[in-house]
């Protein structure tokens, strides 16, 4: 049988789409799937492993080269996320 793309729309249609798997998004997705809804979770960036991927947790403020300010290069390369309050020198490694 040939590969016909007749189920593509169905395959890409979801009951719920959760954007961001933070504390709210993660729980929302869990509840949605738990109730049998076909759920898509969208998350940006790499897979963050607990403890291992928090290299800046105990970094002192003076140890940040730019005292937690974003460099112009980072801002230019990431114009949208740079507007977020939670994106700074100590968190830019989560990109």
């Amino acid at each position, binding site marked *: 049988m040939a590969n016909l793309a007749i189920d593509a729309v169905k395959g890409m249609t979801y009951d719920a789409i959760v954007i961001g798997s933070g504390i709210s998004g993660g729980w929302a997705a869990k509840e949605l799937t738990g109730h049998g809804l076909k759920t898509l979770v969208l998350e940006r960036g790499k897979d963050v492993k607990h403890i291992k991927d928090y290299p800046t947790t105990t970094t*002192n403020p*003076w140890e940040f080269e*730019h*005292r937690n300010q974003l460099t112009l290069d980072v801002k230019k390369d990431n114009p949208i996320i740079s507007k977020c309050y939670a994106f700074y020198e100590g968190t830019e490694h989560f990109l």
Partner: protein
Amino acid sequence: MNRRVVIRNMALAVTGLVLLPGCDLSTKKAVAHELQPYLSPSQEGLLAQVVDTIIPATDTPGAKDLNVHLFVQKMVTDCYEKEAQENLVNGLEALKTKAKKAHGKAFDACSTAERIALLRGMEQSGEAMEQEFYKLVKGLTVQGYMSSEYVMMNLTHYEAVPGHYYGCVPVNSKTLS
């Protein structure tokens, strides 16, 4: 192994080696100024004198002792637009000229009062460039000084996790009555 398979695998491996460097997704870039400082040694020395005039050494270290001038330069290089970078250079050059004109000597040969007067002249200057220069340098000097390890550890007593709760402390009988 089949010779045909071996050849195909070798071809794939070579193609992979050629293509892989293009797949480098890391966004780390070399910081330009580490390779090429954009302030000349004399400008950097002058900047050190300026930050040290703004926050001089008293019973606490001055801004120069805490390398605040390097912080100012780093911030302007990495975090500020080109206009600010040019402004820093032009402002330092203007300061050099002003010191020569007003006192007939270099800024670092001037007395503290003369230096303060020169910087105040920049701050209250009618020229926007000079005002901007002083605002930029003063702002970054204060920021760099206040967020330095010395100040945060010894003067403002930084605690990563503030508000420790001491659950068990001896009670002085005097404070009870």
